[in-house]
């Protein structure tokens, strides 16, 4: 008797399993799911795309905002259809990803946030001073270098506490890329990367960790993507660009930086628009492109091509209210050429 029971149960389980497989199979033929992972920076933009993409092509988009590093790892392991990263792939990462291309698909900025009680928002700051702060050479808020940039502001004699990302982050790449460009000393000593050897300060995980670290530390200073800074009402600097003007990390400033019209690197599509030359008077100097990384051979090649083409064209119109500036024409041309390589 007990044996009979077991047999019946096994049959039942098998039947249910078969049924489930059949349902899944039919579901798959009806619509396509594109999965992606990576940058938290572009996550709000992708969230805006889900709806229109569904009604345009019937695709459903699933995106996990696990950080740029995680996105690169996921697409390298082919566990997702595309990865998203704010920092361009390094040569080793390109090699590991085997036949991946990166396409610039969104454009935004990094805000330098601070926590000073009783001091107004949009204090002035420049790259050279910022580099000295993060190198531990300027340690007080009333340092002459900061005072000189903010005439008439009563700066406290508080200790500066720097907060940086402890995980590998595209935001760190953008920030240190800017510091390296603005300060030769920073470039030779620490350089740029998704993670660098910070001489001072504390590290926190993710934008949320840095924001929490700064907002809980009187005298704190850190960096997060601009949408995050605005959403959480953090104070941030107006940054001096090469022309001497102070720009805020708004759409105008980002557009000003994108106007620098740098050509993407012909083999990697890498673009850097930090600290653009003097003639770009409106530029916010800590602006960055962010990339989508896709394998050139994919079982969903046709769908990916359609999705990416939509993303770099119509998809861009969802950007501005989230502080993403639509990508410029010259970059669009390159992006489309690269998308055509996916087969």
């Amino acid at each position, binding site marked *: 008797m007990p044996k009979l029971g077991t047999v019946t149960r096994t049959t039942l389980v098998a039947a249910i399993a078969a049924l489930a497989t059949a349902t899944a199979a039919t579901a798959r033929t009806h619509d396509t799911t594109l999965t992606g992972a990576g940058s938290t920076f572009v996550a709000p933009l992708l969230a805006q795309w889900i709806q229109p993409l569904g009604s345009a092509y019937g695709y459903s988009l699933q995106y996990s905002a696990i950080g740029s*590093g995680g996105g690169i790892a996921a697409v390298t392991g082919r566990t997702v259809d595309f990865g998203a990263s704010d920092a361009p792939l390094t040569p080793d990462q390109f090699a590991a990803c085997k036949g991946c291309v990166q396409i610039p698909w969104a454009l935004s900025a990094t805000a330098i946030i601070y926590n000073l009680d009783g001091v107004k928002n949009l204090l002035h700051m420049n790259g050279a001073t910022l580099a000295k702060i993060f190198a531990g050479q300027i340690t007080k808020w009333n340092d002459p270098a900061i005072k000189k940039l903010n005439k008439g502001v009563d700066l406290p004699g508080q200790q500066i506490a720097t907060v940086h990302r402890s995980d590998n982050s595209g935001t760190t790449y953008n920030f240190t890329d800017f510091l390296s460009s603005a300060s030769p000393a920073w470039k030779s000593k620490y350089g740029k990367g998704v993670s660098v050897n910070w001489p001072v300060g504390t590290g926190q995980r993710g934008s949320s960790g840095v924001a929490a670290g700064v907002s809980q530390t009187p005298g704190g200073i850190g960096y997060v993507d601009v949408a995050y800074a605005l959403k959480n009402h953090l104070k941030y600097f107006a940054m001096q660009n090469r022309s001497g003007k102070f720009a805020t990390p708004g759409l105008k400033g980002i557009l000003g930086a994108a106007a620098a019209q740098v050509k993407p690197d012909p083999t990697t599509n890498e673009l850097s628009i930090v600290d653009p030359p003097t003639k770009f008077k409106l530029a916010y100097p800590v602006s960055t492109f962010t990339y989508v990384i896709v394998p050139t051979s994919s079982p969903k090649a046709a769908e990916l091509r359609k999705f990416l083409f939509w993303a770099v064209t119509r998809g861009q119109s969802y950007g501005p209210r989230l502080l993403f500036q639509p990508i410029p024409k010259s970059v669009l041309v390159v992006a489309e050429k690269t998308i055509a390589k996916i087969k």
Partner: protein
Amino acid sequence: MQAAESPRLSDRRFRAGDAALQLVAGAAALAACVVVGLIVWKVIAGSLPSIRAYGVHFVWRVAWNPVLGHEVYGAGSFLFGTAVTSLVALLLAAPLAIGVALFLTELAPRFLRGPVTALVETLAAIPSVVIGLWGILVLGPVLRDHVEPALHSALGFIPLFGPASSSGSSVFTAIVVLTIMILPIVSSISRELFLGVPRELREGALALGTTRWEMVRGVVLPYARSGIAAAMILGLGRAIGEAIAVSQVIGSVVGIHWSLFSGGDTLGSKIAESYQGGTTKLQVASLIYLGLILLVFSLLMNVAAQWIVRRGARRQGVGTNRGALG
């Protein structure tokens, strides 16, 4: 004939069951060994590029620079951070945990025992990422504003108690978080051990006119001693391996700083922070090398634990020890 055959049949079935048990249990044990073997093999294979580049020096070199062109890696500061955080956390947690266990078995009124035991055990069930979050938002600022300045002004002449951290993320915060995490492990095992002390022994001691404290000190604690040591080692293992919560509160600083109030990093938290999106092969290999060191470190701890337990058992006499562990 029939009657003679049926016992043989059942006999055979009995043997088949035995064989099946042998097979299943053996396969399970083998699978466990194979998994450990595979992990060790993978870790060693993965860290080979770093082992080739740095050799054994890696273990004590204090450096970690992942920037292309400036790359240099070493485990020194993380090994130091792991040792300091886990040992100090154990030092804080052990007396607390034994106190909790004694309270629950010997002192608490009966109606309190159930709820308090359940609460202490709930502490063990809180996901580490949640404890870490609480560490950033609540514990860190409290320690920074109240505890660290007090310790610094009272004991500042000892280099361990330097000026308070600015952000609330420090080695000290990590130690307190780890203390909270290992407390329920040590206390619930100790509680079981204390409950296992034979009633006759307790009653005998009390009948001889001992106070409750003398009974605890003279009977309960010695009886459970080697078991408590084992529980502490389990807690230490947890503290050494904890990655996420530590990475949230320790401040991720490379270098050896004697003050508990400065930032630091541990082997586990460094791996958790940096593994995703490692930019170069050498960096990824070095992170796996950190994992290898962590593996060896834990193994040494385990061996030490077994040695302590055995030594305790010998001192105590085998009989009582068997009782304590059972």
